[in-house]
Structures are given as structure tokens and as C-alpha cells.
């Protein structure tokens, strides 16, 4: 899809008014200054229900410039409904150029994946976050979780991992795997597969996280230490597959299972469609 | 014997009264102006009719009753220790290391095996589990407690059996001052004999003993001196305010 439709009139650039964007940018500056710390912000209503990426969209709208090139992915794919809709939205309300090529994008809004192609300095990755609080599963009180963060009372995070090993023999958490950012804040990396966790560590790109319903944002600045929590005798590990991608033959990417017929046929292909496609084109 | 000239315990002008708030503040005076001394290696037996205050004296020496007046002193090389003014927390170590008490009744946590009841005073001093067990078992064997009972809780034992557990517990830690409140009351002749031996051994190692024995035979065999309590120093428990006497 290209920016064929004209920019909609009657809206401010990128939909949000400048005051709101300024407020969110201030929040982002604080988030960058305190890596992994959740900053509350006055979330606005977006023309989309919660759960569709309203948090990410508000962050994208606040950092997007007129000359920026935008890419939107959903579970690694550029062509799913959510990705297509958000891309079309910013084309109409901001008139920015969009792309599916990771390398060409200045801002990438993502739901639940980090692109396979290593990000470079100057790029911004905006995550859509459903539940920003990694301690929420064990502590329902917001007041208490804030105090726990303030005092670095993170023992319960390992209780969860312990319980995983006790039940399954290994750490069975496969997505939204908790990390410690810059040796200080325990942070939910959003529901990315733990396969992507190592890409958070010392990333060249700026990573921003927005939770629309919870009205929280946080950040992992470039070149920040990000460790996945684990035990000495059960170290953090990423998923592995027996076979390479059925389309491009990659052995080092995150694969999705695709059902191909009604007779049990299936194959594993890269979840990052742009990466897979570029490899297939190279081969061809 | 030099120890006779240096008593370990001195009681002077001891006075005890109970105030019964539930009975309109009535005061029961049970002891007045009691004095005694006790030396290491000596066994002093308190005599007198029941109700004269013999057990009361032992309980004051053990810290379970408060002292209304007078002094209770232990004499150590470094100086005297006044029991009547001793702060509560200081009694823990004093009872653990110095003053032992064998009461008529066994008061223990239910369901704890007899042998562990006997081991406890040693464990409290930091003795090893194995060593304490060996000593406790030999003590119980000596007191003829059937071996099948050692690992049962004494709650269901007969009076005599409970008493023997109590005696074993009281003598095992070899306190320098032992207070004995009718330890032979419900024992048969053979076991009374064992208690007499235990007392004589305690005297031989220099312990000072203060006891109540109703059994004439035992009393004569263990007592170095008799201290008859009379209404002059130990008063029968009659109220001094006759008009407030409970019905």
C-alpha cells in the first residue's frame, strides 16, 4: 500500500493535538532518562478500541516527523489487519511515507515482535503493550507494585520462574519474559517471544513502549543493558526449531506454524514477513 | 569444710503475702521473717505441716513467686546476687545454669516424648543432641522407667512415672542449687532409693539442696539439717482481716 489517498483534512498532523504530543514527549524524555521505569501519561481516546495498539499509536504520533518513514508490523507481518489499518491511519492523518522494509523505516510500530534485521542507530521501535506491570500477576495493588519497584523488591519475579521449573522442568514462560533494564528496573518487554529478548540488549535503536488502556509508557534507550531473569542452573534460553524456514531456509529466525490444508499439513515459516521476503528475493 | 563457713544461699527476713483482688483486696500473709543459710554440699530439709509455706519458699527462690519483703542472696566469688530484685530477663540464664527445680507436677508441652523432656535442660545449655540423648536415657534407665515409655509423651503416664521423668529432668543438668518439692511423693521404695542416691551424688559434687520431703525415711537419710517452719516465720494461710474471710 502506498500513500495514494490524500491526507485527511481537519486533523492536526498525526491526529493528536500538539499539547498532547508535548505531554507524551515529556513523558518519553523521563522514560528515557530512567530506563525501564513506567511513566504515567494522560492517554487520549484514539479512533480505535483499546487492545488494538492505542498506546503504541499515541507514542508513534508523538515522535513521528513529516519526513519520517513508518513501518507497522503485527506479529512480524506487515500485511495483517492491525498493521494495515494503523499504517493507513498514519498515511491519512500525517501523510508520511510508509514502508515494509525494516532497513528503510525511521519509526517502526510493532505488536509482539522485533524485526529480525538488526536495527540501527537512529531508528525508533514503538511497542504496543497490553499490561505494562511485570509484577501485576502477583500483586494486584498499583500502590504496592510501585513501592516494590522503588525498593527493588523483585524476589517474586523469581518465584514465578521457580514455579515454572517446578511444574514443567524448565522455564516455560515463552513470551513477555521479564527483563531487568540497566541493572535496575524489572520490565515487561511486551508479549514478544523470548526469542526476541536478546535483541533488546545493547540495541542501537531507541525502544519505546506504550500501554493505552493502562496509560503507561516506558523506554529502553540505545545501548542499554537488558538481562532476562533466570537461575544459575537454569539459564535463559531462546526457542529453537528443528527445521529451517520452509520459504527462505533461514535457521536463525523466529518461525510461525502455518496450517496448509485440512489434512494436518503444516509448515514453519519466518514470522517476520519482510525479512523472509527479502531473503527469498535474494535467492531467486 | 571451708564451704560451711561460706554459704551459697542466704535468706534473710523473708516475707510473703498474697493480695487477692478478686476477694475484695484481702491480704493473705503466708510467711514472715524467715531466715536461713545453705552451703555447697549441704541438704537442708524444710519441715512443718502442710500450708505452712514450704513450697512458697521454694517458688520464691525459683522466681515463680514474687518476694514481698526480705532478701534472697546467692554468694558468688565476684560478689552477691540478690534474687528479689533480679530483672525478669536475668532469670533465664540463672535457671538454666544455677537454680534447678523439681516440682511435684510435670508441666511440659503435650506430645513431646519423655526422653526429649529430659534432654531439654542440656540442649538449652548448648549440649549436642546425641550426647544429651545418651545422658537422658541413662538417667531414665537409672530411675527404672521402662524403655518402651521413653519415646512416648508422659501425658498418659502414671503419677509415679511422670514423677520420675520430672526427677530425671531436674537432676540431669547438675545445677549448683537444687530445689526439691516432694520429689519422692509418689514413688515406690526402689525408686525412692534412686532419688536418695541422686541427692547424695549432688551433695558430693558440691550442690546445695533445699527440699521438702514428707517421707520420714528419705528425710533422715538426705538431710544435713532440718528447718522446721513454724507459724512464727511461716504462717498458716489464714487471712489477717478476719472480717474479709471468704466464705
Amino acid at each position, binding site marked *: 500500500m502506498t500513500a495514494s489517498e490524500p491526507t485527511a483534512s481537519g486533523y492536526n498532523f498525526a491526529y493528536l493535538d500538539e499539547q498532547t504530543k508535548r505531554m507524551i514527549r515529556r513523558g518519553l524524555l523521563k522514560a528515557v532518562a530512567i530506563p525501564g521505569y513506567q511513566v504515567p501519561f494522560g492517554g487520549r481516546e484514539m479512533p480505535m478500541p483499546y487492545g488494538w495498539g492505542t498506546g503504541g499509536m499515541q507514542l508513534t504520533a508523538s515522535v513521528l516527523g513529516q519526513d519520517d518513514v513508518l513501518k507497522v508490523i503485527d506479529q512480524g507481518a506487515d500485511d495483517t489487519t492491525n498493521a494495515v489499518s494503523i499504517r493507513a491511519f498514519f498515511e491519512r492523518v500525517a501523510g508520511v511515507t510508509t514502508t515494509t522494509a525494516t532497513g528503510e523505516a525511521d519509526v517502526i510500530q510493532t505488536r509482539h515482535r522485533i524485526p529480525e534485521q538488526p536495527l540501527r542507530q537512529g531508528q525508533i521501535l514503538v511497542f504496543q503493550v497490553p499490561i505494562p506491570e511485570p509484577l501485576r500477576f502477583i500483586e494486584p495493588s498499583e500502590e504496592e507494585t510501585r513501592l516494590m519497584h522503588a525498593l527493588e523488591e523483585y524476589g517474586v519475579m523469581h*518465584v514465578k520462574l521457580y514455579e515454572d521449573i*517446578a511444574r514443567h522442568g524448565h522455564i516455560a514462560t515463552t513470551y513477555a519474559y521479564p527483563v531487568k533494564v540497566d541493572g535496575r528496573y524489572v520490565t515487561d518487554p511486551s508479549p514478544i517471544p523470548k526469542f526476541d529478548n536478546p535483541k533488546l540488549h545493547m540495541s542501537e535503536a531507541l525502544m519505546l513502549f506504550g500501554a493505552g488502556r493502562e496509560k503507561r509508557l516506558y523506554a529502553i534507550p540505545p545501548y542499554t543493558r537488558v538481562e532476562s531473569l533466570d*537461575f544459575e542452573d537454569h539459564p535463559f534460553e531462546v526457542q529453537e526449531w528443528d527445521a529451517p524456514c520452509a520459504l527462505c531456509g533461514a535457521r536463525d529466525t523466529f518461525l510461525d506454524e502455518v496450517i496448509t490444508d485440512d489434512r494436518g499439513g503444516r509448515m514453519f515459516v519466518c514470522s517476520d514477513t519482510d525479512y523472509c521476503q527479502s531473503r527469498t528475493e535474494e535467492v531467486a | 569444710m571451708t564451704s560451711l563457713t561460706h554459704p551459697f544461699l542466704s535468706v534473710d527476713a523473708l516475707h510473703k503475702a498474697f493480695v487477692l*483482688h478478686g476477694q475484695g483486696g484481702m491480704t493473705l500473709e503466708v510467711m514472715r521473717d524467715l531466715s536461713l543459710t545453705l552451703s555447697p554440699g549441704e541438704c537442708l530439709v524444710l519441715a512443718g505441716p502442710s500450708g505452712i509455706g514450704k513450697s512458697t519458699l521454694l517458688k520464691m527462690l525459683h*522466681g515463680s513467686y514474687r518476694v514481698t519483703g526480705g532478701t534472697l542472696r546467692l554468694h558468688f566469688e565476684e560478689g552477691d546476687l540478690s534474687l528479689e530484685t533480679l530483672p525478669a530477663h536475668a532469670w533465664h540464664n540463672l535457671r538454666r545454669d544455677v537454680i534447678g527445680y523439681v516440682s511435684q507436677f510435670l508441666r511440659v508441652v503435650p*506430645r513431646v516424648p519423655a526422653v526429649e523432656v529430659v534432654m531439654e535442660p542440656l540442649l538449652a545449655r548448648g549440649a549436642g543432641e546425641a550426647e544429651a540423648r545418651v545422658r537422658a536415657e541413662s538417667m531414665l534407665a537409672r530411675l527404672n522407667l521402662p524403655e518402651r515409655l521413653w519415646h512416648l509423651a508422659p501425658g498418659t503416664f502414671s503419677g509415679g512415672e511422670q514423677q520420675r521423668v520430672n526427677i530425671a529432668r531436674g537432676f540431669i543438668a547438675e545445677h549448683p542449687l537444687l530445689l526439691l518439692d516432694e520429689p519422692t511423693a509418689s514413688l515406690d521404695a526402689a525408686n525412692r532409693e534412686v532419688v536418695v542416691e541422686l541427692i547424695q551424688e549432688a551433695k558430693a559434687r558440691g550442690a546445695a539442696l533445699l527440699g521438702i520431703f514428707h517421707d520420714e525415711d528419705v528425710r533422715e537419710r538426705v538431710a544435713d539439717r532440718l528447718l522446721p517452719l513454724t507459724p512464727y516465720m511461716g504462717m498458716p494461710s489464714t487471712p489477717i482481716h478476719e472480717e474479709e474471710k471468704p466464705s
Partner: protein
Amino acid sequence: MRRPDLERATLLEARGVTRLYGPGKGCEAIDIRLHRGEVLGIVGESGSGKSTLLRLLAGMVRPDAGQVIYHSSAAQGCDGSGHEGELDLYAIGEARRRALLRMEWGLVHQNPRDGLRLGVSAGANIGERLMALGERHYGQLRAAGQDWMGRVELDPGRIDDAPRTFSGGMQQRLQIARTLVTRPNLVFMDEPTGGLDVSVQARLLDMLRTLVRELGLSVILVTHDLAVARLLAHRLMVMRRGQVVEAGLTDQILDDPQHAYTQLLVSSVLTP
């Protein structure tokens, strides 16, 4: 004969601690001194203020007046090097106070469900305080869990079972294991045998006594049950309407009570 050392270092001290929710409700001008290795029982009827006092002492409720002082050097034994001598519990920051509760102190609730994480296994419950202290070896956490289950007479084979599947007495023992696994210096117990069947109480009491002796614990024990107090506490404080009416050695209080209220309390106990 040499005079024995009768002194014990002071571990926790309350100086004029007051917290009133109404006239006679709460605690008023309480002074306490808990020595190292001592079990101090606080007894009284419900509403006497004993639970409020426990919460004040344990750093959970800020007093309106007075101070709670923790002698951390006494807790460290003789050396005490590198440790502040006196910590004024409510003058130090919340971070330090919570860290103290988490690392050096322990709290045993009357209802084990208040002190346990019911959603995770027995082993995770026991391991939590160790993990909070930085233990990151699963095998060692598990070994500690099994060891402590044995100590509190739970079947170590049930380490992966949820606390929900345990009886009330077992849950209470699990809570005690979870609290003591980090070997705290000071443990607060609020009616630890309160909700249990009489048949289970005795075993728990014996276990607590053994643990107190073996670990050299100092304990503040709140109970309305004088029989429990007699078996566990070295010293007692009797509370009534927010005030301490009498304090002393446990058998002194129970066998020769001085205050009218204590006499009433002691004489009201049913003995089988």
C-alpha cells in the same frame, strides 16, 4: 563458684510507643525491652491492644508517639562490625524498614493464608525470601525447601504441591518454614496456634520451642491463650485497654499474679 553471666543484649526496644484509635483502643505509652534469645509473650483479651502493639513493633504501623529501636549490632552477635548500633524503626526510610522486615525479621500470621502465596507451590513459598535475598540457584532453592519441609515435619515429597492442598496445621508449619528459612534474628508471631485444632497445636508448640532454641531466635508472641504463653514465652506482658498492667517472668505472672486484672485473667482459665 563464679557468678554466671545473666545479661543479654537488648535486641528491640519500645520507648513510650503510642497509637490510639480511640480512648482505650490501641496502645498507650508502652515500654518494652526484648533481649536476644528471648521469647516475650504479650497476652490479653481481644481488643486489649496487643495486636496493635505487635504491628507497631514490627514496623507495620507508625506510632503517634514514641520510638521503636532495633539494636542491629546485638543481632549480629559479638562482632557487630560495620553495623549501625541503633536503628530507630520509624526514622529510617521505608526502604530500610521493609528490607529489615524482609531480611532480618520474620512475621508469622495467625491465618497461614495471610502469610503464604496460595497460588504457588510449597517450595516456591519457602524459597521466596531466599530469592529476595538474591539466591539464584534453582537446585539450592529446592534443597533448602526440602530441608525446611523436613524441619517443620512436612513431607519433602510434597514440595511441588500447592498450599491449598495442605491442612490448616500443615499450612501453618509451611508459613513458619517460609519465615525462618532466612534465619531471621527476630520473629513476630500473632496467635500462631490460634486457628488450629487442639490436637495439632501441641505439635506446633513443640516445634516452635525447638526452633527457638536451635536457631537462637528472639520472638515477640501475641496470644490470648495463657497455656500457649506458658509453654512458649520466657516473659509475659499483660495488656488491658491499651496499657501494660503487669510484666514479668511467665510463671511469676501466671502463678503469682499481682494486678487485679491478671488475677482475674489467670483464674478464668479452664483447666481440664
